[in-house]
């Protein structure tokens, strides 16, 4: 392992030296962010190499307006809110699900659990708050299919599912972006396949390297990015061999296509992204919570002073936010990047504080 690390480090050093300017690598996914911190990778990188945490944490990219919709539904006496754990703590304009004591909020581990809840509580409507990228969407699709088959009338989905590629495109379309390359998430790539990144390379000329979450994968992924940047030879490379195929998981893709369609939904920090969010197709509209309750998604302002939006775009580091570590901590989160364990602010807080203080 030591040999591989040293080889990767030599590649990085050589690239930084040759380029003579900083290289900014965005790790798109929150799982990579956590792996980088947990394994202490940052201090081993050359000085000129900067890692930017991207919009890959589902809870973090969920727009404030969506959170407010969830809180609004939670106030209805005829609803049970079924959600993944982290969503419970994201603050909206009127507290969070955690502090809404009158609301019936259940933390579920899967879409299947949410459906079981609906079967057990026929007198209530279970709203499954479905967030996540291509990794969780197929499971939601299965649940909707199953609900349709069982004619489950009191189950619906509030979809905040997101797509990775449109987000990458939106980031690069911003002329202020400082991104030289992407470290692409292993698990999303298992579903969408590495070929999905080809348009990004062709359109924007940025390297896209797919890596797993083991520290060696991350280091070698970054080294491969450095090699490409230094040689000005961007391409899609997967070093997650044997796990990620070029075409991805066709079954999961077909499931998503059957039940969902992309639309121009809102993202925190990134605004409206063309084709970036998924909603249920018209044939399944009876399971769409937005349509069932006649709700419109209105983008809401972020909490005052919160810079999660900029952090998600790689335009600010967590500690550049005036509230980081002071008003905003994991116990008293102001923005979602401090709530989710995969959020950039939470990761900096948990693993990186001292190192920052010491420069």
């Amino acid at each position, binding site marked *: 392992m030591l040999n591989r690390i040293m080889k990767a480090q030599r590649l990085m050093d050589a690239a930084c030296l040759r380029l003579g300017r900083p290289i900014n690598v965005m790790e798109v996914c929150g799982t990579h962010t956590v792996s980088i*911190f947990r394994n202490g990778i940052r201090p081993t990188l050359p000085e000129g190499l900067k890692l930017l945490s991207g919009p890959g944490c589902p809870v973090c990219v969920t727009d404030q307006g969506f959170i407010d919709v969830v809180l609004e539904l939670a106030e209805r006496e005829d609803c049970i809110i079924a959600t993944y754990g982290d969503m419970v703590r994201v603050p909206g304009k009127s507290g969070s699900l955690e502090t809404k*004591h009158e609301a019936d909020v259940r933390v579920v*581990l899967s879409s299947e659990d949410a459906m079981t809840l609906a079967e057990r509580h026929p007198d209530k409507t279970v709203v499954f708050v479905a967030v996540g990228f291509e990794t969780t969407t197929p499971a939601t699709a299965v649940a909707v299919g199953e609900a349709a088959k069982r004619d489950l009338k009191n189950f619906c989905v509030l979809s905040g599912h997101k797509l990775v590629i449109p987000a990458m495109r939106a980031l690069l379309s911003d002329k202020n972006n400082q991104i030289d390359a992407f470290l692409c998430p292993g698990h999303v790539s298992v579903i969408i396949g590495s070929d999905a990144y080809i348009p990004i390379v062709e359109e924007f000329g940025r390297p896209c390297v797919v890596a797993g979450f083991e520290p060696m994968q991350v*280091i070698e992924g970054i080294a491969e990015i450095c090699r490409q940047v230094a040689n000005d030879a961007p391409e899609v490379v997967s070093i997650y061999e044997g796990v990620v195929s070029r075409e991805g998981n066709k079954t999961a893709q077909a499931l998503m296509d059957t039940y969902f369609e992309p639309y121009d939904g809102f993202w925190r920090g990134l605004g409206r992204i063309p084709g970036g969010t998924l909603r249920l197709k018209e044939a399944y509209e009876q399971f769409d919570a937005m349509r069932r309750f006649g709700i419109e998604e209105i983008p809401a302002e972020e909490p005052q002073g919160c810079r999660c939006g900029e952090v998600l775009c790689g335009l600010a580091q967590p500690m550049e936010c005036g509230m980081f570590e002071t008003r905003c901590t994991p*116990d008293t989160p102001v923005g979602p990047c401090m709530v989710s364990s995969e959020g950039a602010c939470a990761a900096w807080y948990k693993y990186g504080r001292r*190192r920052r203080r010491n420069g």
Partner: protein
Amino acid sequence: MDEERDKRILLAHGGGGRLMGSLIATKILPRFANATLGQLADAAAVKVGDTSVLFTTDSFVVKPLFFHGGDIGKLAVCGTVNDLAVAGARPVALSLALIIEEGFEMALLEKILDSAAEAAREAGVEIVAGDTKVVERGAADGIFINTAGIGTRIADLSMKHIEAGDAIIINGAIGDHGMAIMSQRKGIEFDSPIQSDCAALSPLTCAILEGTDGVRFMRDATRGGVAAVLNEIAAGARHDIELVETQLPVNAAVQAAADMLGFDVLDIANEGKVIIVVSQASAAAVLETCRAHALGRQAAVIGRVLEAADDEAIVEMATVIGGRRVVQMPYGRELPRIC
């Protein structure tokens, strides 16, 4: 928001993290103000006549009640025995109080009592007092247990004795209890399921304290795991701590389950693991005593105590890939009802 948090108890108030710390410091301690309680030790030192007795209590609300490697009965005995053991005591006697939900199956109750009795026998303590309450359906989740215990002091252990250069030893692999419970709750199955390490530590701690010198301080790494204990030690002793990741004993299945669920093994609860801070000179002898004992076969030196480099003492870890990172106090909301 902040006001809302102050109005009612949240799960995080019982999670062993910062919110719980502030609840204890601002609501509980001032009302019972006394020097013994104020030390917040694993067990309180009380003089009974001329004898120094260590006294402690703990409540158990684990879910599920039965898990691989134990159940709430065994846990209730081991938990209190361990609080006494790590405080430097030989446990003598326990009380056991049951709060049972109406309708709870008698056969399950007997199973729980049997394993409590067996655990007490193994730890060499007697259960000498008890209480039984039944509450209406829905007022408790099956069964809750409280135990209290007393022991005689065999060593004077304190964070104040810790010095730079001391070694940090653990008696075996970390994260087993928490991961056994979590994987069971989340329905993750392995070919051979992860077993909780739930065990009474007093036979091991007594062997160490009676057979070696140089032990400064011990604490069992329960809620909040090794990360919590080491941070408590760093803050209490005002010394930095350096952990070496490659030295940390972790079972492969536990590591796999933790990775899958996004947990850091350092944050995960144990129920049969003790962190021992020992002088450099005695480290080898303590390690040998551990490894010779059934409860310490996988014991290892996992780090050392350093002079604090800053006002705030911290725990840092040298990682597998040659990097470094801070090991923070867990926030204590990740695993409710783990014990």
